[in-house]
């Protein structure tokens, strides 16, 4: 019986050794997020513009109605989003926008440190999303 106790406690003690802790010393230490993590959105740029063609599928599919798109025509006659804003306070990070996008113009990054002081700062405009 003692042997069983020792076996069990050895696992416990092993975890007490340095390097075996699951606690991360945030914010000094940060976790590496999985590629599939759904953090802050990013608009993907192409050579001279955003990849987004303002097809309105993401605002349509968005269950939280947090995406605002307004399309327009640029000098080349292409359709582009004049306005693309995500209201992060409403976003539920479901990732449907990424799934709906026909041109892979929006993706979700690993960024999760999104706290801020002003409500306005949660409005992610096209410029901010393209960074």
């Amino acid at each position, binding site marked *: 019986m003692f042997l069983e106790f020792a076996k069990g406690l050895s696992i416990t003690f092993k975890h007490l050794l340095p390097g075996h802790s699951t606690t991360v010393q945030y914010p000094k230490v940060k976790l590496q997020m999985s590629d599939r993590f759904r953090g802050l959105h990013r608009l993907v740029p192409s050579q001279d513009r955003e990849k987004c063609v*303002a*097809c309105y599928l993401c605002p349509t599919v968005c269950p939280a109605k947090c995406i605002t798109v307004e*399309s327009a025509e640029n000098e080349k*006659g292409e*359709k582009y989003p004049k306005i693309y804003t995500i209201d992060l306070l409403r976003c539920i990070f479901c990732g449907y926008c990424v799934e709906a996008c026909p041109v892979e113009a929006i993706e979700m990054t690993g960024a999760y440190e999104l706290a801020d002081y002003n409500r306005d700062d949660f409005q992610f405009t096209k410029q901010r999303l393209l960074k």
Partner: protein
Amino acid sequence: MVNLTIDGKQITVSKTATIYEAAKEAGIHIPVLCYAKKLLPYGACRVCLVEIEQMKGRLIPSCTTPVSEGMVVTTTSDEIKNVRKTVMEFLLVNHVLDCPVCDKGGECDLQDLAYEFESISNRFEGEKFDLPTDEVNPLIERNMNRCVLCGKCVRVCDEIVGYGSYSFINRGFETKIATAYDRGLNCEFCGQCLSMCPVGALLPRPFKFKARPWQLKQVDSVCGYCGNGCTVTLGVIGDKLETIRFNDEIGVNDGNLCIRGRFGYSYVNHKDRLTKPLVRKDGELVEADWDEALQVAADGLAKAQKGQGAGILSGARLTNEELFMLKQLAKTLGTENLDHSGGECYKGVTEGLKETLGVAASTATFPQIEKADVLLTIRSDFYETHPVVGMVINQAIRRNDAQLFVVADKRGKLNKLPGAKTLLSKPGLELDVLNAMAKVLFDEDLAKTEGVEGIEELKAALADFSPAQVAERTGVDAEILQTAARQLAGAGNAAILLAYGLPYQGLNKELATAVANLALLAGIPGREGSGLYLCGEKANSQGAIDLGILPHGNGLGAQAMLAAAAEGKLDALYIVAEDPLSSYPDRDKIAKSLQSVPFLVVQDLFLSPTAQQADVVLPAVTFAEKDGTFTNAERRIQRVRRGIPSPGEAKVDGTIFALLAGKLGNSLSFTGPAAIFAEIGKETPAYAEFNFNEIGPQGVIWGGETLQPTNRKLVVVSGGAAVDGDFQLVTGSALYHSGTVSTKAKGPMAVLGEAYVEFGREDAKKLEIVDGDLVKVAGNGVELKLKAKVDSRLPKGVLFAPYHFAEAQVNRLYKGEAVIAVKVSK
């Protein structure tokens, strides 16, 4: 009737139906791409293939195959699904997949079919087209890379519009839809093709990249331009009217619209719209609040009424409910001086028809035109004023082999329709032609004289109107004239059409009387299937007549009011929804009237030239911003619905009338248009049988499909008088515009942006004038400089100038006569 079985369901349909139509009637869905209800069967896409027991071995296109007795049809089986999926693969071989940037996405038939058949891959490979898009014209974008060659645009332009812009060119994989010589599209821009296109090959440019169809709020209403009363569906995003959608499910127009209806909406969003009341202080119009403006207006009108009197002049684009309120306001004010639309132009209806037939409206409805065997239109301009009725005429000709006769002083679209015969007369002499036709009926004993009064008088008066004499006077071919008269009298169903409006004031009453005489002699009014149509230029011209926005008792009419004002015998004028200075005949006289009248109130959308003269300007709203009813030229009462809020502080005309009446001591309080409509019924018995809330998508017709005349009396009309001079100018409506308000709309202005004077080729050659030259046109003591336009429509010596453009001041030349003698110099 034919009995058949579709998917095990026993169905009985008419023997002219196709399998597709039979299935649709039975509620069985068959996918289609190239089928359209209003077009003839074509069978281009092969998506609607079905299996027929009696024709086993191959699949049959259901949209082109007529039903037959005992047919057993299967619409879905694994084989059929496979074949349809293969057809989809063929269609998608060279179709570019740019759905994300294609504005059709969301309402694209091809997209829907691809979804239905789960077409996610393609076994066939082909080169995608890379053709340049046609963006030459400002309204319709053609991207032939997206075309699936269903031919709907080709067919609608030919079968319905009768213009024939498109055709298939090349062969095999290279086949495409092209315009003549594959140049850019240059047509009448009615946009029927883009309403028909099942894919994104034809799209409206003003709406390009604005929104997805599912984001639009759609409101069914009635077009605010002409008296045809087409159903339009307003496409609203937020608070803005962004597009006009087509709708072939409801309404009187089968989804057909003209350039004004489809592209002329943008005046609603114009930045120059009045948003605040203006009051003149120290000679300047300054912004004021509503209470102040209304008080000033009410005080001024009341004071004038105590003096020499006040007059009210209304437009014909107000709803019936508003016109009723206006009438009550006039009563409150105590004035009998009430009139609309220039006062003269509708006299053909209120006097011409009233004296002869005893009714003041068209005697039949538009759908009956399509079934007519013989059609007679007076003036080729009928197409310009009422393009969608023009399309119905075209269908009567193409579908039912109707014979069209056009009595006109110039050629136009109508004259080019298949088999159309033109009775081309000198301007101002159309009356003689009509009289001569009446005489032919008498002489050849074709006249239907039963129950008709005044036969002997008319017979005597027509002594000088033998076809030969009239042919000599007017230049009309005597033989065609006789044929026209004979056919009109002998036709099973016949229709006579005449438009009236501000630019057609001259001889209006006489023309209406002459056509009414002719119609009576041909037995047209009151006969099932036949009709005499007098169509108003404005959306609610008929409503204004029905509601009696006319001078009563000793009241002055519009022209009399303006004349009295000019002489200083009228103390105030209240002008609603009209811009007399820009559109009424004899601008100089009107300018004098507006200057002389001590107090002027103008209620309008824009600070028009008339409004600039006013003491008080009240901002009103457009058709898209109000609720109510319009009565169209066939007596159909239809609902107008509010799609967007009014800009700034602008108020609905009806509300303004109520507030103004309140200031005058009689608050006209009604709970809404429904209550007012009920009230209208008390004064206008024809409207009493209808309930506002029960007016359906097809509207309701007062007086029934065929209106019975209350008397049949021939009235003698003398002939017209030709004017001397080398050149004779006629005014009228241009196809792309209606009234003056369309000059504030981007669509019509992009196609026709400025005034012009049109020359026939012969005259232009003689005068050495080319398109775009500035010419001087002098007549009636006035000289105008106008841009020349050369076309082949006009006979020698005839000039044409549209009246829509205020800056051109064509109405200084035009003083209300049918034709003006002018001199032309470069």
